[in-house]
């Protein structure tokens, strides 16, 4: 039992010392039994701060250390490492969180100082009960799973594969490419999305270190950092891709059609299909909901024409299991359904388009071969682009979707380029052009004759509806029935505008994927208040998660543009790589342990363990914890009716002492 304890109260500049009387806390600590020295220091986490602690350990033979500073989630590792370097077992360090849970949240110096004293008293009492523990080491499987084949996942997979790591890249859709593959041009440089993305898709598809699993979904994840076991459902596509040569004859001959998901329903595709021409893998799958043979047992035209005999209607979903050392989640976003804002007319008025629809409409490979026209085939003479559709909106999403201002500018530019006579409006709340070259692009667009209206487009009405609703005097001159009227308040002129246009383009908010909650649970990754995956630290650990070994990249973490997404893909790959190249890692030593002499063999604990880490020895009638499987949650410890299970580092004695300390003043 340690009895030469050193207490260090950190000022953290003024972060702590501005609210907590640190000298008073240190004086108080000096009086607690077991404390041999107590000091304050400006920044304990700094090199001199750590050196101070190390010198005391060496000179005074301290046998435990209490650091009253920021949260243990911030610097526990730092101080454990410092102690270890000075020869003290790292588990003999205890942190008192007097910053995040004291100085930053308490009003009044007196109250904050009292609370800090209680926290220090608890930490000292707890430290007296600490036992030295050895960290466990586990080997890391040198492979990675990347979930999601958009640009973030592709980038992460390529970076890892180029470094020699075996990568499994799982994509839910029949092709990788994600949202970026749907875009026409990219802001602000206006380079074509396909031209910069396709080479990366091909590289990922043909890389010897990447195993591509498209039309597949992760079903189950078990294990932990270094050794995740992942079950992947390979959905039946009814085409044997090992035999298929990708000749495309089946697609040409297939007589059945369905709406193309890739073209946002603006065009049809066949029942046997490639989502788009540059798909990777460039081999089709069969949509079982559109295929006549799979629905009614008649047709088999594709079978007849397939020389490679690759069509296989007997194919079933199968589940493949892989073991990987680390995981990158890059599952992306979904665009908000415009129908959730009925006053904007999306889904009701044919002239109202979503952003993705407009991307396809404008794309040379899209449903109109790049001709911008309304559904009835007219070239629009005026177009309104409405910003913030569901973003920065108390009724929908409070956050800014970050990319809409910029792609709205891009649309305005493309419209002016293709239809120089057309009037183009941007209805905005604020222009947010924050990236490299973005502000310059905005300036350029202002000079291109685009009309910028500072005011949110609030309502969109059909021309006929408008005429029926308002007095004749309020109908804009020459308004035709098929046209649209955008109602917006110009907040600079402080005037309500009714603008007649032929086409409206919405900019729907970025949303977490519909199944983000389920996916988060599967990978034990938390989500923020906005529903996107939560990073470990918003600034210092932006691609890490609280589940060690699982990283996040791209729009699954929050709305972002392509440059930021690619940067995160690379960042996640580098974090994963740095883990893998360590070959083995230390994992928590704080496991549970059954004390044989106290175990009554009741087996209560066995059913409680979520990791099947507790087994029952029939011969001896005792339970035993498998150290390698135990993650140290302590549920079995709390449930054992004989108090036979010991939680290392979180034992009853340690916690009781902490409670005593907390309530000692």
């Amino acid at each position: 039992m340690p009895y030469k304890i050193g207490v260090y109260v950190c000022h953290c500049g003024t972060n702590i010392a501005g609210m907590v009387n640190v000298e008073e806390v240190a004086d108080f600590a000096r009086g607690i039994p077991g404390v041999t020295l107590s000091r304050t220091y400006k920044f304990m986490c700094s090199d001199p701060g750590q050196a101070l602690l190390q010198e005391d350990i060496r000179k005074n033979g301290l046998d435990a250390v209490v650091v009253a500073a920021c949260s243990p989630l911030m610097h526990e590792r730092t101080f454990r490492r410092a102690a270890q370097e000075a020869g003290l077992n790292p588990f003999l360090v205890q942190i008192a969180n007097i910053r995040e849970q004291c100085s930053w949240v308490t009003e009044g110096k007196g109250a904050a100082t009292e609370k800090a004293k209680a926290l220090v008293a608890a930490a000292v009492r707890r430290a007296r009960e600490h036992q030295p523990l050895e960290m466990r080491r586990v080997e890391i499987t040198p492979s990675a799973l990347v979930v999601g084949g958009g640009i973030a996942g592709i980038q992460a997979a390529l970076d890892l594969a180029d470094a020699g790591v075996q990568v499994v890249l799982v994509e839910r859709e029949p092709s990788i490419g994600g949202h970026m593959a749907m875009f026409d041009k990219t802001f602000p440089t206006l380079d074509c999305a396909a031209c910069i993305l396709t080479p990366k898709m091909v590289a990922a598809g043909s890389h010897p270190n990447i195993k591509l699993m498209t039309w597949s979904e992760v079903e189950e994840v078990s294990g932990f950092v270094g050794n995740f076991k992942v079950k992947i459902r390979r959905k039946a596509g009814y085409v044997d891709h090992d035999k298929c040569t990708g000749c495309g004859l089946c697609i040409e001959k297939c007589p059945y059609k369905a709406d193309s998901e890739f073209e946002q329903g603006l065009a049809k595709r066949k029942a046997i299909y490639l989502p788009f021409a540059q798909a990777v893998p460039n081999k089709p799958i069969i949509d079982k909901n559109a295929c006549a043979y799979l629905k009614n047992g008649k047709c088999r035209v594709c079978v007849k024409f397939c020389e490679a005999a690759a069509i296989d209607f007997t194919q079933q979903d199968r589940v493949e299991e892989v073991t990987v050392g680390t995981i990158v989640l890059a599952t992306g976003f979904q665009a908000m359904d415009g129908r959730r804002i009925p006053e904007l007319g999306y889904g009701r008025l044919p002239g109202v388009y979503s952003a993705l629809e407009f991307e396809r409409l404008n794309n040379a490979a899209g449903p109109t071969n790049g001709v911008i026209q309304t559904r009835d085939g007219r070239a629009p003479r005026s177009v309104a682009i409405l910003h913030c559709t569901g973003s920065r909106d108390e009724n929908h999403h409070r956050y800014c979707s970050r990319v809409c201002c910029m792609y709205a500018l891009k649309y305005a530019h493309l419209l002016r380029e293709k239809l120089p006579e057309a009037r183009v409006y941007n209805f905005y709340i604020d222009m947010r052009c924050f990236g490299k070259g973005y502000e310059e692009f905005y300036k350029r667009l202002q000079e291109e004759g685009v009309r910028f209206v500072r005011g949110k487009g609030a309502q969109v009405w059909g021309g006929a509806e408008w005429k029926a609703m308002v007095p004749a005097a309020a109908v804009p001159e020459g308004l035709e029935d098929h046209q649209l009227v955008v109602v917006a308040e110009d907040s600079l002129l402080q005037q309500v505008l009714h603008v007649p246009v032929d086409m409206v383009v919405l900019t729907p908010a970025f949303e977490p994927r519909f199944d983000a909650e389920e996916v988060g649970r599967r990978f034990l990754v938390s989500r923020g208040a906005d529903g996107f995956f939560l990073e470990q630290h918003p600034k210092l650990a932006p691609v890490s998660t609280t589940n060690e070994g699982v990283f996040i990249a791209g729009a699954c973490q929050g709305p972002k543009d392509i440059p930021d997404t690619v940067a995160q893909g690379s960042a996640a790959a580098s974090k994963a790589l740095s883990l893998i190249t360590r070959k083995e890692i230390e994992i928590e030593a704080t496991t549970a342990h059954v004390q044989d002499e106290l175990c009554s063999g009741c087996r209560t604990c066995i059913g409680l363990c979520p990791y099947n880490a507790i087994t029952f020895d029939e011969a001896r009638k005792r339970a035993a914890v498998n150290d390698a499987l135990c993650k140290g949650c302590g549920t079995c410890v709390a449930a054992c009716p004989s108090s036979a299970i010991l939680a290392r580092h979180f034992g009853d004695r340690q916690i009781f002492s902490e409670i005593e300390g907390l309530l000692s003043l």
Partner: protein
Amino acid sequence: MSFEPKIVGFLCNWCTYTGADLAGTSRMKYAPNVRVVRVMCSGRVDPTFVLKAFREGADGVLLGGCHPGDCHYQSGNMKTLRRIPLLKRLLKDMGIEEGRLRLEWISASEGERYQRVINEFVEQVRALGPLNLEVRKALPKKSQATA
């Protein structure tokens, strides 16, 4: 001077403790009455911890865990959820009001919720007044802990 209750909070490392840290990082002010014990999972909270806290002078006890389904250890929070009704019955038999024990699911991103829960619970316990000392004396002085 009004009564300042003492409250012990047992917070799980992954959700509520992190949420409490977030409240700090966001400089959200709340009542100083709650003093926190960090546990890895709310499932670790042995009912004797709660009794011990009351014995040592707590007027209220807060348990904080991950939302159901979000537990870092899959289901530890659900084990806690099931223990609470039993524990509350026991507390009632001892003369400790149910309102002195509160279980809350607070995620790592819910700093604002943490602040609200703390302020609410402090007021709730303040309204109940100090825990009856006779009751406190009746609680076992030394823990039965062997570990």
